[in-house]
């Protein structure tokens, strides 16, 4: 399942729901706000298109790897250091596929999914959009 939400998530529950009798391995990627001397992060998404693109990547991964499930939750809004940003959960019979599909999802997500992050300065005076230095 693909979700874009402001809400935080309960990983235990998501893993429980992801479990399939064929699964022997569940690999999870959790992206969190790293303390690069920032107060936090603001995350913006072009939600409709981001959902479509995530579903497309999910479909590609299900075709490419022997996996049973691939779930993604991407948060938006204002987050603090160490807050959860992104969760990817991949269940598979064997671990190699679960790792590969989970990495595929995060790699493609970073390239293709319309989401942006703004690092918020500590003094409260605005911030800097990640990736701006390339512009």
């Amino acid at each position: 399942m693909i979700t874009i939400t402001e809400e935080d998530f309960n990983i235990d529950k998501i893993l429980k729901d992801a479990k399939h009798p064929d699964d022997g391995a569940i690999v999870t990627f959790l992206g969190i706000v790293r303390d690069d001397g920032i107060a936090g992060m603001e995350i913006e998404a072009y939600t409709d298109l981001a959902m479509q693109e995530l579903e497309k990547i999910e479909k590609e991964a299900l075709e490419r790897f022997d996996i049973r499930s691939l779930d993604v939750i991407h948060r938006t809004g204002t987050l603090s250091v160490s807050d959860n940003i992104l969760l990817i959960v991949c269940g598979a019979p064997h671990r190699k596929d679960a790792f590969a599909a989970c990495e595929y999802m995060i790699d493609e997500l970073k390239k293709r999914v319309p989401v942006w992050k703004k690092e918020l300065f500590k003094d409260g005076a605005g911030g800097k959009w990640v990736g701006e230095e390339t512009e």
Partner: protein
Amino acid sequence: MIIKVKAFARFGEVLGKELDLELDSRSDIDGMLSVLCASRDAYDLIFDESGRIREYVNILKRGRHIQSLDGIRTALEDGDEIAIFPPVAGG
């Protein structure tokens, strides 16, 4: 006709996050950008010195990149949603 424009990240801060533009019927992306980039800041954000759209600018019509349509000559219709944004940086 009315075109809905959504701009994201820094583009949203400069252009406005979401706006309805009143355009002449038979306008195209180029025409829309002229209206959208009337201010110096907005123009510099989207165009380079030679007046070309900067490489990192993504413009989508109803979810499709204008490069896969007719570029800046892509025709617009009443009710179209145009998205405009810098390189993505999620995850």
